[in-house]
């Protein structure tokens, strides 16, 4: 099996990739290849929300794998698509971490494969998930997540302002707001008695 790629290998692949117009990628390459894979692997969902047919799941995996191999991946800055083989994709899957530790101390949790609907619940990550939050209530809102028994790790919201100034993208205030968010989230963990929660 070939070695797996890292982000530097992928950037180099983009650099020597095939030139593709972005609208061609969006309107032709993706829909055409997705439909071809659907037909080749006979992918048709039934009425169930969650699949109960392992054969369908296997065919969907193969369809997704071949979709990536025949399409590659697009970089809009370079206007190029990289190429990757199925063996290289599978090498990357094989080398991906099977366990990740999130958080520190007694708040550390382990994220590891569940295998179907295991009796072990998933990690519960609570937070506004990037939704906008007023500066005046930000720490209290984050504490409302940290104090919940079932919550294992936190995901931050977006500070709407910092020191009363809009945290607009691509301005110095965006950086100030990001650092303030981290500070407030850590304070929220402390106030909930859960210092060390994964953020």
């Amino acid at each position, binding site marked *: 099996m070939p070695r797996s*790629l*890292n*982000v*530097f290998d*992928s950037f180099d692949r983009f650099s020597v990739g095939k030139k593709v117009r972005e609208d061609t990628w969006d309107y032709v390459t*993706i829909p055409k290849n*997705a*439909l071809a894979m*659907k037909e080749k692997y006979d*992918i048709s*969902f039934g009425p169930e*929300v*969650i*699949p109960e047919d*392992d054969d*369908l*799941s*296997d065919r*969907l*995996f193969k*369809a*997704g794998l071949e*979709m*990536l191999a025949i399409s590659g*991946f697009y970089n809009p800055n*370079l206007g190029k698509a*990289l190429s990757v083989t199925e063996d290289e994709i*599978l*090498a*990357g899957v094989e080398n*991906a971490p*099977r366990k*990740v530790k999130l958080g520190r101390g007694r708040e550390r949790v382990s*994220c*590891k*494969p569940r*295998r*179907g*609907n295991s009796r072990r*619940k*998933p*990690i*519960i*990550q*609570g*937070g*506004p*998930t*990037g939704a*906008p939050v007023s500066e005046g*209530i930000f720490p*209290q*809102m984050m504490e*409302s997540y940290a*104090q*919940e028994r*079932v*919550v294992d*790790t936190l995901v931050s919201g977006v500070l*709407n302002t910092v020191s009363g100034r809009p945290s607009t993208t691509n301005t110095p205030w965006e950086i100030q707001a990001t650092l303030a968010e981290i500070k407030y989230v850590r304070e929220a963990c402390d106030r909930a008695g859960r210092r060390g929660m994964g953020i």
Partner: protein
Amino acid sequence: MDNSGMSMIAGWYLARDVIMMEQMPIFGGYCGGVEETAICDVATMLASFALFDCDIHLDGPIHIRWGITTTRETLQIAAHAAAAIDLNSDLLLANQYYTLAGPCTEMCLLEVSAQSMTDTASGRELVSGSASSKGVVKDMTTGMEARVMGEVAEATAGMEVSEVNKILDKVLGLYKGQYSKPPMGKRFQDCYDLKSNTPTYEHMKVYDKAMETLRECGLNI
């Protein structure tokens, strides 16, 4: 993937940080229908690990019309893609929550519950939420949605998938008729007591009602 994204990943990769990579396929967009979107979802999840040094993948199939992750179609895409990867690898998969209704409404908590059941029973390792009110309205998120997400995940873990599907049909049927006029709900500061930082009495009544509804639908919670 643009150059800014590649540069950020390079920094995290060299610092040996844990990298959670987010991608939200749009149902009804370039990909097409539910099956084609699920195929693209699987392909992009695989790319995250194989090309971009991802440790945990954060999914979020989203509906082009409603801008949420909790519709039947987007849950079906998420579940099928997760199950396909789960059956064929040990990759770590997460999903994120965008509801149509706002906090302090039963619809919001039922939307969160439907997705939590779906993610748990399809084998995902982490659930992340919730961006209520589509994640676009200021202060319209609270810890209560995360409580429900977690408690429903605990109740669902270990159940037969066919049983979960039956309950999901009932829960989805309770809120799909409200898509065009979802309840706005309340801001955090209007449904939490800011002195004690706990949900208000009214908010707890909404929580109790949602739990009762889930029990009536068959969930042992």
